[in-house]
């Protein structure tokens, strides 16, 4: 059976392999380069954290992998995007529909806009199960109930009949996670799934993710701007900036010995509850470059070239900040520290 062959192949190599991904958008003002040559891999059962600020390209990367960006205006290209033996950019939309939601699932930030407000929780789950032929009509209620139970929703039988607006934000996010898990995906992409939640509810969802990771053993891509949530979930972390990977490292190395000045700056810019209170935060001057004005292309020079960072308010009386950011190189590459000194 082909599925078995693919499964074996996935276990042998990485589950997902992305090489030199580019995503651009054509807009009236010109061309926007949102993702500029991003490469990474995810192996089975692994959790990859992708961290970046707004406009860093982390969400666009995820949407491109799911093939959810309409082309045009988007332009998606890559040397390789291989998932479980499939060339995701080459297969036709029919084949992609069998993968999307089933083998490759996604959870978005805002549960209210991801759930259909006029459908009960049960119908939304049943739709997934039936579309991907996970079970027959007579079994959907039992399956849906079990899914809600798995994501820690109390009284799942009652909640099945609820509409999204009758649920709290935390419950809605659990329903979305249940929907994403309904077909037993090999890889779950979670894009800022706890950002809209209260901190105590966020903690519950993080706990749930850790439990699912342990019990189901699927691979996860956890996208966040929050270095805190990533620290407890990810095995490996990518730091993105201006559509590129700035640093990639195993989670402990990244937090203990960040190599890239941008990673260091990010870590020092956040106020913390653990340890002593720092006197002043190390703000990163300026702001990330506007992707519209960032005219980087495939011919982006590699090596030690400063990355642009816009000054705070054009014409500010302070001098423009020194460009301390370097072009991307993987963490752990030889001579990295020497390069920076």
């Amino acid at each position, binding site marked *: 059976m082909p599925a078995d062959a693919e499964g074996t192949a996935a276990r042998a190599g990485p589950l997902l392999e992305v090489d030199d991904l580019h995503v651009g958008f054509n807009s009236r003002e010109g061309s926007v380069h949102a993702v500029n040559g991003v490469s990474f891999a995810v192996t089975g059962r692994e959790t990859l954290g992708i961290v970046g600020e707004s406009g860093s390209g982390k969400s666009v990367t995820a949407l491109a992998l799911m093939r959810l960006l309409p082309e045009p205006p988007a332009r998606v290209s890559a040397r390789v995007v291989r998932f479980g033996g499939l060339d995701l950019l080459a297969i036709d939309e029919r084949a992609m529909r069998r993968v999307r939601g089933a083998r490759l699932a996604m959870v978005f930030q805002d549960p209210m806009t991801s759930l259909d407000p006029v459908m009960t929780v049960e119908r939304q789950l049943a739709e997934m199960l039936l579309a991907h032929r996970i079970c027959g009509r007579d079994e959907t209620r039992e399956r849906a109930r079990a899914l809600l139970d798995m994501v820690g929703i109390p009284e799942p039988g009652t909640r099945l009949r609820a509409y999204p607006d009758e649920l709290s934000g935390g419950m809605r996010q659990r329903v979305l996670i249940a929907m994403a898990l309904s077909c037993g995906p090999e890889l779950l992409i979670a894009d800022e799934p706890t950002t809209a939640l209260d901190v105590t509810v966020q903690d519950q969802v993080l706990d749930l993710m850790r439990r699912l990771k342990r019990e189901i053993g699927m691979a996860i891509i956890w996208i966040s701007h929050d270095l805190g949530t990533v620290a407890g979930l990810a095995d490996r972390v990518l730091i993105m900036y201006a559509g590129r990977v700035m640093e990639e490292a195993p989670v402990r190395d990244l937090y203990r010995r960040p190599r890239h000045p941008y990673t260091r700056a990010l870590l020092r810019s956040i106020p913390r*509850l653990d340890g002593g209170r720092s006197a002043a935060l190390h703000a990163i001057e300026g702001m990330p470059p506007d992707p519209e004005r960032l005219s980087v292309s495939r011919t982006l020079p590699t090596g030690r070239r400063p990355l642009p960072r816009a000054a705070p308010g054009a014409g500010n009386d302070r001098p423009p900040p020194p460009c301390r950011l370097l072009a991307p190189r993987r963490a752990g590459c030889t001579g990295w520290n020497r390069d920076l000194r």
Partner: protein
Amino acid sequence: MPRDAAVMRLVGLDPALASRYPHEFSGGQRQRINIARALAPEPEFVVCDEPVSSLDVSIQAQIINLLEELQRRLGLTLLFISHDLAVVRHLCNRIAVMYLGRLVEVTERERLVAHPRHPYTCALLSAAPVPDPEREAERTARREVLEGDPPSPLSPPAGCRFCTRWMRRRGIDCARVEPGLVQVETGHHVACHLHAG
């Protein structure tokens, strides 16, 4: 210098940008403009309601540093409202923790972080993810995950408003009597039956 130019300079913006519209600025710059507007009439007291919550961390640090600097230079009193305890701890001298419309604990910042008394404060402190994998693993190993979601403020629970989420509550009073804010040590107030005298 005209007053508007002076106040723009105060918040680190170029007065030459004064004729622009809000959409021509970035999120961080808009927050600087907001702060400039609040400071224009030279107030003594400024209320900041989640002023950094929607900003990226690198921009958030700029605004926090700006607020600190302005407070020092202008001798301002700030009431800083935020859901982010780490930001509050960084910026504020004293912290008041609220739950469902009631103050549950009020004390000096380092005291609150090191010696929280109210179970909700403890839960909040221990629910915040730590940006350090080893400490984060320690945190998740020993903290208690708070059950459920905050109840609706339309029909708050009887007695202590926190009692529906606190599993080790005292059966006696928690679900019947609402605890008042009492001083447990100098400058440290708590509204909880566990600390009622």
